[in-house]
């Protein structure tokens, strides 16, 4: 928002122009409402509005528009004031589309955004669930409360999750750990589907998920919002409260979330022991020292306790096979319960970050960041001898991160971006478990340096970058033979990444981007030194200390365009060729133990190709009716064509039809604004590429889900609120999903109705 002021005498006018943040087009039918005087107006076809005859004083303006997030502005009126306001559309499908070349945040990479309103409207969703709607993004799960994101088929060690600028440091390995992040803390989630992500630490092969709280608004009064939500399936209820204030040169914001849910229900039975409880809090402080020096502090604490389907906890291969034969899992109860018993997970994640920014001048600045994270994970199994209350896995992961970034913009649209980063990590197993650790203790130091140059010239935009990392690992493992002894490994790796990208704008409505990058990823600790029974996957996992680094070449090509307003599309093709691709290969022979035979999985390397297409399009049928389509196609093969890459998402197609009314309904003192009704259909194809020797059971059938959603803002004199009503799995379809490990044992949840109410404070 830009403020332009003119001098005037006694009666003051407030006027302005409203435009779309991305397209810069004028926005018609935007509601502008001044709370203090309860007067409002609507913007005209040129985006202009004006409210006259106001007394001097302090006012709060509420600005709302269909499909956009409602904005609040504070104005201290002394004279006639003109505002330039930009509104951002909330559509979580095509947000990445910025046709005109004048976006400030330019990059040749493909970026998709989920904004605050979309996050709030889906308050009960996990981080992975929220970004799943984006083409090329899905999640790998264990039940419905453990989910981690997959972008272009890569997850865990190969995908960086950046929480408020700091690479999330948890137990990234394994599909049975969620990233410990409360998405309600974020104002924005961004997914970068790039060929190489050079400015972010943490191993990745090109794609990044960013969780971004926004800067606190310059608003001297205490403001915030309170949200409550309830979902019928799991009888989940929760609340989120946000409060913020910007006083003098200090601003603060507090965010707290509480969530509790019980057993989920499939169309036919309860999923026993699938409850979840979460308590999260975040604090944000911002301090302005001078016009060119600011500092901020961020602290967040994430605490969760979650149950794992009782019937999915089994012993050996025979148990697993008898579980497959059952229609309804073992231990299914006929009554709903909130109780969480073993098998369960208890996780705490603490993040403290201090960041400071110093501007040498308008075009040159330096950022310094230090951050510490502590991740405590305890997993409880069903054990003999009253040991179920002793964790079977008890890991503390401490990490310390420091970063220095320098940016300079030259007059000729040339920008340079340099940075150095260092991360120290220490993982400790608590010996209280009485079980040999699956992941050994380790220390690692990762130090990186990068440089990126971007240059705009006429219709084209060029990006060039390079990154080098040195990684040191010190791993004391415990032998699996008697007598037990310490075998210490030390490794040093040198990773080199580079990328080049170009975007060409053929016109204001049509752009082409090409991106190519190389990346190297050193093997992770789990891939090198795992050893033992992984209860979560009922198999013996064995690392290989001799694994080599993965080398990937990824290229993306994207076209985006459309006509004036009514039609938008985006097409992205990618091809990644990964040499020494590390994967868990099922072995032919099973391992005989006193508990019977177990399948053995060994970390092995091969050359693999993963490629796919992400397609999105949006079409405005009439003024109030639009339709959106998202299609993701992905395939992965070994280069020798001998096998399909496992754990790749099924192809899927999402289609929705949205009705939005431009008219506001007024009943007495109550205003209904931004009424939106949406019908969403999701079709997931069967994963047909997996051969029978790659899994215990073949991937499940294709399925089709229907969802309904309606939302509106309701305002009265003293009350400003947003209501969201949703029905998921409307037809109560019975299905299983290939990327949910629970598919071996049980169906996915059936119909669920949810209601969320947000009240502005």
């Amino acid at each position, binding site marked *: 928002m830009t403020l332009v002021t003119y001098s005037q005498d006694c009666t003051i006018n407030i006027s302005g122009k409203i435009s779309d943040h991305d397209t810069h087009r004028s926005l018609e039918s935007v509601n502008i409402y001044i709370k203090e005087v309860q007067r409002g107006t609507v913007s005209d076809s040129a985006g202009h509005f004006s409210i006259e005859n106001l007394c001097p004083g302090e006012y709060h303006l509420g600005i709302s528009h269909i499909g956009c997030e409602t904005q609040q502005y504070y104005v201290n009126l002394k004279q006639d004031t003109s505002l330039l306001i930009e509104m951002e559309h909330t559509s979580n499908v095509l947000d990445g589309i910025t046709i005109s070349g004048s976006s400030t945040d330019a990059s040749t990479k493909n970026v998709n955004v989920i904004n605050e309103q979309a996050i709030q409207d889906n308050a009960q969703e996990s981080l992975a669930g929220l970004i799943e709607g984006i083409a090329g993004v899905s999640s790998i799960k264990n039940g419905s409360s453990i989910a981690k994101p997959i972008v272009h088929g890569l997850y865990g060690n190969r995908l960086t999750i950046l929480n408020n600028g700091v690479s999330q440091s948890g137990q990234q390995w394994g599909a049975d750990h969620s990233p410990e992040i409360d998405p309600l803390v974020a104002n924005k989630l961004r997914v970068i589907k790039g060929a190489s992500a050079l400015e972010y630490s943490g191993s990745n092969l090109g794609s990044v998920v960013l969780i971004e709280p926004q800067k606190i608004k310059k608003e001297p009064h205490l403001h915030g919002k309170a949200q409550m939500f309830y979902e019928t399936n799991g009888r989940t209820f929760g609340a989120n409260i946000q409060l913020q204030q910007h006083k003098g040169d200090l601003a603060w914001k507090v965010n707290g979330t509480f969530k509790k849910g019980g057993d989920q229900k499939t169309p036919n039975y309860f999923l026993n022991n699938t409850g979840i409880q979460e308590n999260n809090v975040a604090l944000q402080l911002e301090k302005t020292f001078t016009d060119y020096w600011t500092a901020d502090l961020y602290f967040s604490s994430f605490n969760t306790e979650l149950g794992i389907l009782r*019937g999915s*906890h*089994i*012993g*050996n291969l*025979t*148990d697993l096979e008898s579980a497959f034969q059952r229609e309804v899992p*073992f*231990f299914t109860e006929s009554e709903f319960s909130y109780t969480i018993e073993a098998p369960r997970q208890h996780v705490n994640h603490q993040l403290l970050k201090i960041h400071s920014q110093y501007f040498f001048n308008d075009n040159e600045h*330096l950022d*310094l960041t230090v951050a510490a994270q502590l991740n405590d994970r305890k997993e409880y199994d*069903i*054990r*003999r*001898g*009253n040991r179920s209350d002793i964790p079977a896995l008890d890991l503390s992961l401490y990490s*310390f991160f*420091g970063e*220095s970034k*320098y940016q300079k913009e030259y007059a000729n649209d040339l920008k340079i971006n340099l940075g*150095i980063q*260092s991360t*120290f990590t*220490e993982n*400790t*197993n608590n*010996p209280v*478990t*009485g*079980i*040999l*650790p699956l992941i*050994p*203790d380790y*220390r690692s*130091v990762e*130090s990186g340096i990068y440089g990126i140059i971007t240059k705009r010239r006429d219709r084209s935009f060029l990006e060039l970058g390079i990154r080098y990392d040195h990684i040191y690992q*010190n791993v*004391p493992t*415990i*032998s*699996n*033979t*008697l007598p*037990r002894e*310490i075998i*210490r490994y030390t490794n040093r790796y040198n990773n080199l990444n580079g990328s080049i990208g170009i975007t060409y704008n053929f016109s204001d409505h049509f752009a082409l981007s090409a991106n190519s990058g190389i990346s190297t990823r050193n093997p992770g600790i789990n891939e090198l030194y795992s*050893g*033992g*029974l992984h209860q979560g996957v009922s198999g*013996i996992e*064995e690392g290989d200390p001799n694994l080599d680094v993965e080398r990937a070449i990824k290229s993306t090509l994207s076209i985006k365009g459309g006509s004036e307003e009514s039609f938008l599309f985006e097409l992205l093709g990618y091809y990644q060729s990964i040499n020494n691709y590390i994967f868990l290969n099922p072995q032919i022979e099973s*391992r*005989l*133990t*006193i*508990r*019977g*035979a*177990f399948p053995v999985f060994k970390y092995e390397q091969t050359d693999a190709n993963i490629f796919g297409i992400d397609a999105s399009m949006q079409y405005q049928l009439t003024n109030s009716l639009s339709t959106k389509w998202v299609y993701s196609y992905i395939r992965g093969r070994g280069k020798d064509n001998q096998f399909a890459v496992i754990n790749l998402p099924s192809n899927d197609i999402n289609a929705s039809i949205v009705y939005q009314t431009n008219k506001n309904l007024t009943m007495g003192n109550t205003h209904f604004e931004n009424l939106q009704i949406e019908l969403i259909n999701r079709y997931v194809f069967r994963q047909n590429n997996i051969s029978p020797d790659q899994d215990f059971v073949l991937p499940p059938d294709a399925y089709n889900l229907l969802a309904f959603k309606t939302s509106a803002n309701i305002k009265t004199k003293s009350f400003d609120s947003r209501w969201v009503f949703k029905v998921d799995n409307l037809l109560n379809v019975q299905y299983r999903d290939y990327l949910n490990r629970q598919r071996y044992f049980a169906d996915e949840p059936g119909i669920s109705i949810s209601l969320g109410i947000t009240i502005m404070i």
Partner: protein
Amino acid sequence: MGEIVKCSIIFSAVILCITSCSDDDPVIVNEEEVITTLQYNLTPTDGSGTVQLTFRDLDGDGGQDPEITGGVLNSNTTYTGELTLLNEQENPVASISAEVEEEADEHQFFFSTNISGMTISYDDMDSMGFPVGLRTIINTGSAGSGILTIILRHEPAKAASNVSNGDIGNAGGETDIEVNFSISVE
């Protein structure tokens, strides 16, 4: 620019100082829950020699392969069977069968064989009157050879249909032990 370089160097140095710690060895866990050894002692009621079947895997799931010792039984003979579970990693050796006995209502052994004429029946029960299987009675028939399978389930549905007769089909729960012995009846 000079300032920045200096600043960055100091900054990196600080991080290196913080991160250069001594190398502590991890504590080797005490695997008290591990079952290394199963012994099945078969004592004939006619007073002839005792037979001991043994499954022993001292280093647990990985490492060395387990040692398995089968046995030879007399035909048309009744044996009393007694199971002993040990953790031989502990010093002194820990008895896991005592642990199972304490939690008898949460455990049940299941026996099965493909040797014709051989039957195994329970000779003990928990506080609820359901069988446990630490003590059994074996009757052999005519001569033959095959496999005897012993399974220990933790938290089975003991009350489920036929489970107390030794049918594992409806038992559920987790398998804590599953071992096979080669037996010949002569």
